């Protein structure tokens, strides 16, 4: 088991079966976020913070579109089962916010988005020899870079004054989401020969 993708081919490209699984996982996670942001986005923006929902929706969609086009895909019969387990994991989880149930959907979405943006670092899987001009390599770097920026909205919201009374519950829910997302990411990577133990 290696800590990085590969072995690369002579042109510094990631093997197709690894590209397929990594891209499928990322599309599943960011696609779920895009759908959930789309549902949360009103037709007409009434409040300033909703502009961020718009930005998040389009950035997530951009990530999905990029990965669909930059990946060299190959048939993978295990993906059906794996994708089903991933999609189940992205569903909202019950969160105990005593006294304010209206916040729960937003907290659910923010904790999932925080975990996906913070815990998944696809560019860190690239060995130093990876081709700097390969579309898949560039896509992984872009996904990680954009995730760091998208994450800021979740940090601002989850650390914000509105949620101070629920700090312990928020922290627990977020740690659980991180744990779950990291586990799925680690299992997917192990299935393609990568040891991502922390």
């Amino acid at each position, binding site marked *: 088991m290696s800590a990085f993708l590969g072995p690369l081919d002579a042109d510094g490209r990631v093997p197709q079966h690894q590209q397929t699984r990594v891209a499928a996982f990322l599309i599943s996670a960011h696609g779920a976020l895009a759908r959930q942001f789309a549902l949360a986005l009103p037709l007409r923006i009434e409040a300033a913070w909703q502009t961020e929902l718009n930005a998040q929706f389009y950035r997530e969609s951009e990530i999905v579109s990029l990965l669909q086009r930059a990946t060299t895909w190959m048939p993978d019969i295990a993906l059906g089962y794996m994708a089903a387990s991933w999609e189940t994991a992205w569903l909202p989880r019950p969160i105990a916010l005593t006294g304010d149930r209206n916040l729960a959907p937003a907290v659910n979405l923010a904790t999932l988005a925080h975990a996906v*943006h*913070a815990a998944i670092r696809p560019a860190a899987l690239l060995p*130093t020899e990876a081709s700097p001009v390969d579309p898949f390599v560039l896509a992984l770097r872009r996904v990680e870079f954009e995730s760091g920026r998208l*994450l800021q909205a979740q*940090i601002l919201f989850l*650390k914000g004054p509105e949620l101070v009374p629920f*700090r312990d519950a928020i922290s627990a829910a*977020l740690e659980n989401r991180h744990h779950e997302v990291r586990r799925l990411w680690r299992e997917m990577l192990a299935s393609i020969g990568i040891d991502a133990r922390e």
Partner: protein
Amino acid sequence: MPFLSHGSYRIRYELDGPADAPAYVLVNGLTQYAELWAAYRDALLARQFRVATFDLLGQGVSDKPALFINQDGHVAVLHRLISALGDGPVFLSGISFGGLIALRYAIEHGKRLSGLVPMSCFAELSPQLLLIGNALRTGLILGGTGYLQDLLLPMNLSDQWLKPLLNKLDGVKRQGWLVNDVYALQNLMESFLDFHPITSQLSSIAVPTMILNGEFDFLTPRSLHETLRVEIPDSALVIIPEAYHAFTLEKGALTADLLARFAEDVLAGRWKGNKAVLIAPGEPGGELSPFPAGYDHLRAIPVRRPSP
């Protein structure tokens, strides 16, 4: 790889050397990780010390709390690590952010220490440091860990160190980039948002203290170290010639030698701080010399101190 427990979190540490030897505990700066002390470990082990290094909560291989880290947590982790060392003499040193944690430990648990070495350190945020810190945080947010490293490298290291590495800086940055995550670094930086100056508590640090400051440290300049020298009773300020903020990386052999000599002097009863201002030698083993009498060590040009 051994771990300590801190609540539900795991702290990765490394402990080497004989259990009955005096111990040095080294605390990382913000973007560092424990392996960066490897040369210190080797040098101090050769001088018959026991050496403990660790990744702070949120750093390297230690667990990274998703949303909140506070300075009290770092002090608690350090306390747990030092408590695990037994009853022998313990010398504590930290650089920059780690130096601040070491200072706070010395204020809260000073009786457990035999000596303290804050390096590139501060007890309060000057307007410059506050604004630089905010700008570095914005850099991290907008450009990621790599951009933060791009800002810190030229600010904290000399041309002499950087020049031969200019074509391979990506390799220099890679391990730090791999082991440190944006959100975790951001949490560490944001633990400063509620920073309360500790200057007024420094006088309670009774242990011998050697303060190390790079001659050209721009990030935490001489004036911030001067606060430590003036307030800590048994202290001396040692200026590292031609060094910047990250002199522990650039001048490892010299710094490790200074750490060992300080501890040896304290253990032999030779250490006298006297709030002196000293200049370190250029090479390990050289003599420390007093700052020229009558001149102002806070200035970058030779200006005479006003007569008292």
